[in-house]
């Protein structure tokens, strides 16, 4: 029994943290925002990508972490990725890291199509991004820059060439998301995995999306809390730092408490994915708690910043809006709780 990352995993995670602190700082996150939301302010003409960070992640092997060695990856398991997803959330990295590096590879690796193997190799060296969508006409983040779409319907995983896909751009409250609706009708020609060939891999994809978005939400929550701890330590009213007021302390303590107990659930779900056990309930527990606690963190952190937090000049909104998005993407807190409820009480 040992509930902690291995020493190697912990070191790797710190290296990724350092890389992201360097390549995906606030300026880069802001610059990734697109023009169409830019009417608000100084936000950039970005495309939802932080290329320098992506390249760094590719060089370090993060993108190929879950790609089999035979396809040029590192052939590691999901528990090596979960801490990295937390760091990506913490940094506010807008790129489709979870989708490309953690959801897509196991699905593609379970396919016998030569195309799947080719894409895996290209994921590992950072050449392609994969947008992941669930259902018939999914809304996918980073759709405008995606090279491939992996669309998971109830019965199959389809791999679509993005250059040939019909995409309706949609603007998100988080201007770094660059959402697009993929307009598409399922047809057998694009199937890479079907529920007949590997239902487990399809279910695992859903669980991976929930698990790693939960981990990213944990990171986002930590970031918002850290920013707020710093702010309330500096901002003075009534002659004292506002962080010395007990009402402020208790709100922050509650925000931190929620995240504290969401995190081990995400690590547990990643562990189950690693050992190939059914992670459905574990992933839903993680996503349910991470979604809810990130909402609490975002509410508390905005409130404690006062009006300055209610501007786009301040950085808080960059993380808050991502949290609003991710806490509902891949299932919100109630949807996932209902999964657990059915497993406990209806089966």
């Amino acid at each position, binding site marked *: *029994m*040992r*509930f*902690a*990352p*291995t020493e190697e995993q912990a070191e790797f995670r710190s290296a990724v943290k350092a890389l992201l602190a360097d390549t995906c700082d606030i300026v880069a996150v802001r610059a990734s925002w697109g023009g169409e939301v830019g009417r608000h302010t100084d936000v950039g003409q970005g495309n939802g990508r932080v290329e320098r960070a992506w390249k760094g992640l590719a060089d370090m092997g993060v993108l190929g972490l879950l790609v089999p060695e035979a396809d040029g990856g590192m052939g590691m398991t999901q*528990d090596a990725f979960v801490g990295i997803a937390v760091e990506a959330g913490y940094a506010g990295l807008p790129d489709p890291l979870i989708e490309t590096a953690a959801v897509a590879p196991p699905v593609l690796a379970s396919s016998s199509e030569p195309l799947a193997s080719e894409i895996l190799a290209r994921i590992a060296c950072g050449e392609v991004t994969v947008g992941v969508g669930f259902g018939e006409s999914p809304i996918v983040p980073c759709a405008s820059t995606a090279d491939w779409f992996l669309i998971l319907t109830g019965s199959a995983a389809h791999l679509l060439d993005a250059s040939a896909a019909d995409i309706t751009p949609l603007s998100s409250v988080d201007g770094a998301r660059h959402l697009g609706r993929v307009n598409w009708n399922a047809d057998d020609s694009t199937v890479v995995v079907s529920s007949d060939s590997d239902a487990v891999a399809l279910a695992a994809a859903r669980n991976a999306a929930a698990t790693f978005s939960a981990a990213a939400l944990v990171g986002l929550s930590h970031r918002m*809390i850290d920013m707020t*701890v710093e702010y*309330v*330590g500096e901002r003075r009213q009534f002659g*004292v*730092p506002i*962080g*010395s007021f*007990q009402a*402020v*302390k*208790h709100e*922050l*303590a*509650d925000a*931190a*408490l929620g995240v*504290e*107990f*969401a995190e*081990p*659930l995400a*690590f*547990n779900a990643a*562990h189950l994915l*690693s050992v190939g056990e059914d992670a459905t309930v574990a992933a839903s*527990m993680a996503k*349910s*708690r991470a979604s809810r606690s990130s909402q609490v963190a975002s509410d508390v952190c905005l409130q404690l910043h006062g009006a300055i937090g209610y501007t786009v000049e301040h950085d808080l909104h960059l993380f808050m809006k991502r949290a609003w998005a991710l806490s509902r993407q891949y299932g919100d807190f*109630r949807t996932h*709780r*209902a999964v*657990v*409820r059915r497993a*406990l*009480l209806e089966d």
Partner: protein
Amino acid sequence: MDLTWSESEQHFREECREWLRANVPAEPLPSGDTSEGFAVHLEWEYLLHSAGWAVVSWPAAYGGRDATLWEWLIFEEEYYAAGAPQRITQNGIFLLAPTIFEFGSRAQQDYYLPRMSAAQDLWCQGWSEPNAGSDLAGIKSRAVRDDERGGWVLSGQKTWTTRGAFSTHLFGLFRTDPEAERHRGLTYFLAPLTAEGMTVRGFGRLDGDEGFAEVFLDDVFVPDDDGTTETMAAGGILGEIGQGWGVAMSTTSSERGLTLRSPGRFRAAAARLLELAHDQIAAGVDLDPAVLDAVTDAWIDTEAYALYTLRDVTGVVEGTPAGARSSYNKVFWSELDVRLHEAALDLLGAEAELDGSWMHGYEFSLSGPIYAGTNEIQRNIIAERVLGLPRK
């Protein structure tokens, strides 16, 4: 990560389970917070001890079986899953003992620990006073030096002392330096409740049981420790004179953290909650979906607490104990316990008020956010000592 139990740990689990299956009383014992119930629980403690299950993680010489912290966790899980009796020895074995292991002299360990595990000495905790609750550093009970007799003279009043009326010994904080302020000048004393000058008065709690006591100290003499059992039997001091606050903090972190409230306890309660929900559903009781969500929430939180504990134990085993973060545990388990019991009462609906185990459990759960340092105080600690917000 490795979330599997080793073969020897599984074997240990089997052994626990088997013994508990054969020995746990079929009918729940009467509450250990009444004098009749306490006596029955004492018998249970003797049985546990004679079979070597009273304090599994202690050295064999002190009545344990040298189990690892992981095995202790397994034992706790099995213990509560088996519906075994509450531990009336808990204030000794879970709160005082870790402090004796850390601060006691070898002679103190050799003397007090075996008697404690055998339930020969029954300890109660004397922190709170009528005017010092959350503000524990404001305690007024004093210990005055008596050079002539070679010892200390204790006086003052302690209160809310759990099971004080049934215990034999008290550990507590006393002011040895009347000039020193607040946290300074306090000393951690041990004293028998049979000493001359001790008066104990039990009184009722919310649930009606006589679980509380007031302890009045009227010139109680505690001799200096000369290393003999005679002086230790008459009391003693843990740690240095004037350093009581630091010594006491080690007890409180055991109380807030995992020793007092291992996840096994909540897992067993969550399993019973699920069973109740299934029963109500099967009986066709019309339940609002929100009630089933509350049941689900309690179950998820229990799992989260269990996993959090695995992380904590990993930290302890690898030399990075939780420290102030134990305040997260305390807030979480105590509020989880209340929500879990509320969900059960909601499942029971109009029958919730019946005087039964869920209502009893609910009443007890309500004390969790108060004892072991109120949750308001824990939130202060989280904010100041974990997050780093300014104190003033």
